């Protein structure tokens, strides 16, 4: 992890223009992903994790506003560093869309075009990003389908997504995403829509492929259990802000931020089935009324009234090497392991 980061996100601020005014979706998000590293991004729905992921490929809707100081820097071996947010023409975006970065989506069914065969969609992508002929592209696609564990890949190649089972669709999606040998793979809740057993198969498959291809992965999920299995590092998001980030074991064993603690306490514990589940109190506020200071303060049960968190935004303080949380320095000692 001493290499230069594959992708580096600095001060990412994303707002949406709506009838109700500008709505903040992502605020001051920073992270790096090194080659071969898996960064997990965890949060409830509406926490801005998908918006963050889509911004890496500039896939957000037309009413998206990026702050001028927001930087997303991608380094590629062929083209050097690319400032993603400075790409304006869609022709130039090819490199971040399916070239150096690929994405797999939550619903494998809906992410394949229903009336175009799976193979055609795979070949189409290869023709855009490589100099292959159609025949070479076809061979590579079938090889990729085979690699992701799809039986009879040559036959499946000519079939349509509706003829695949749920798990197989996600495998095909992964095969398609990896066929162009991207440097970074964005996986947006790739296992959420799948059965638990299939989920495990897909996770195994992904782990194998990481070893083989050595790309970086941004893995988005709301499921801490999945993160524990696959990620090296994890960032916890709430209302568009990163609350805590660090090596996955450190964060799960010693959660420093009240929100992370809440998330972990809300998980059922298999070793103590009688332990009561403790949900985080309160509701996610409407995006129209962002809390001041630390966005989590209205739901934090540990805070005394009038604390600094109500008015000031806490900095990311180091808890242990590589492990940071949005806390004021005076609170750091209390949470050190």
């Amino acid at each position, binding site marked *: 992890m001493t290499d230069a980061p594959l992708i580096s996100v600095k001060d990412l601020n994303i707002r949406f223009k709506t009838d109700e005014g500008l709505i903040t979706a992502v605020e001051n998000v920073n992270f790096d992903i090194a080659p071969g590293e898996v960064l997990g991004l965890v949060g409830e729905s509406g926490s801005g994790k998908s918006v963050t992921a889509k911004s890496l490929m500039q*896939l957000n809707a037309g009413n998206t506003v990026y702050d001028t100081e927001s930087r997303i820097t991608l380094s590629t071996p062929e083209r050097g560093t690319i400032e993603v947010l400075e790409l304006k023409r869609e022709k130039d975006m090819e490199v971040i869309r*399916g070239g150096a970065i*690929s*994405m797999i*989506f939550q619903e494998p069914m809906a992410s394949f075009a229903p*009336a175009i065969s799976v193979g055609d969609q795979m070949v189409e992508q290869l023709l855009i990003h490589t100099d292959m002929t159609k025949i070479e592209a076809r061979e590579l696609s079938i090889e990729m389908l085979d690699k992701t564990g799809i039986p009879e890949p040559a036959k499946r190649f000519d079939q349509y997504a*509706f*003829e695949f089972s749920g798990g197989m669709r996600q495998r095909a999606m992964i095969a398609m995403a990896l066929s162009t040998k991207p440097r970074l793979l964005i996986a947006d809740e790739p296992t959420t829509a799948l059965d638990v057993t299939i989920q495990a198969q897909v996770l195994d498959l992904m782990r194998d492929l990481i070893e083989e291809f050595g790309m970086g992965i941004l893995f988005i999920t709301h499921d801490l259990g999945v993160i524990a299995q696959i990620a090296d590092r994890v960032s916890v998001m709430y209302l568009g802000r990163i609350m805590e980030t660090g090596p996955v074991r450190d964060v799960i064993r010693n959660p420093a931020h009240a929100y992370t603690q809440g998330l972990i306490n809300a998980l059922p514990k298999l070793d103590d089935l009688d332990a009561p589940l403790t949900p985080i109190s309160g509701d996610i506020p409407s995006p129209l009324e962002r809390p001041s200071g630390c966005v989590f303060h209205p739901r934090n049960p540990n805070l005394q009234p009038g604390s600094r968190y109500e008015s000031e935004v806490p900095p990311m303080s180091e808890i242990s090497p590589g492990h940071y949380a949005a806390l004021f320095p005076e609170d750091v000692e209390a949470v050190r392991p």
Partner: protein
Amino acid sequence: MVQFLQFALVRAGLALFTLLLVSLIVFSLMEMVPGTCAERYLAFKNTQGSGISVADIEAEEKRLGLDRPFVVRWGSWVGNVFFKGEFGDSCILRVNINQLLGDKFLISAAICLTALIFAYLIAVPVGIISASSNSALLNDSLRFVSYLGLALPNFLLALMIMLVSTVLFGDSLTGLFSNEYRDAEWSVDKFINFLSRAWLPVFILGWSATAFALQTVRALMLDENDKLYVTAARARGLYGRRLLWRYPARHALGPIINSLGFDLNRIFNELPIVALILTLTEAGGLLLEALARSNDQQLAGAIIFLLTATIVAINFATDIALALVDPRIRKSVVGS
């Protein structure tokens, strides 16, 4: 291939069944109308000066077979229509309906179909472009124009065009042929004359059809544009026209094809009115004549049945086309 034929056969069977059902509906409605064909004919005769009695009416009913039970009469009507293509005699004019209709029905069907094609030739590209454009001005004005197409009924449009044409050219553009060609045999000159006049009914019928089609295409495109597979395709590096035509437009095609039958239905609904204003003498006009002037249920039934049969035929054709375009349908057909 065999399975595809099977599918086509099943669909054809369904279409035939629909036609049977429709013939039953039309026939029953024509029966429900007060007065029988015999009464009507004799009443018509009466106005010509010959006196009639109840016995005359009964004799005439017997001659026409109207004393048989309803189902038997329906059966023989349907049988004649399906196997011989015969609609029997008109109630009042006492002429064979097939002769009466002649090529008039074909001409009207051709005009309506042309209007339909005209509507979609405009609506498909315009609808697709407007759905993927962000220009509020373009979208609002298209919306206004297509609503105007709905709110300005085509008989008003026809009136306006006639007004302008009467003032400017001294010719109200009515009728499908100029006087000298009206009863002439088909010839190149007659055909040219036909074309020089047929554009007006085509334009008027196509006007509101275009408005409707535009709405349909736009709504379908907006639907498709929002789907995840479009985002996924963009995430693979597709953009611009290549993305537009291969993804959302390609997938909106199925529902668009599906709506053709109902659009033709709508055009047929407007045909009689346009026919009246432009004093066209083809089927729409004939229908009006049959209804308004002579209460000829036999002729009216035949025309309505023919119109419906055309729509059923179009629906059958679109079903087949849909199966060719959409693998989901094709495969489900082949699979079964």
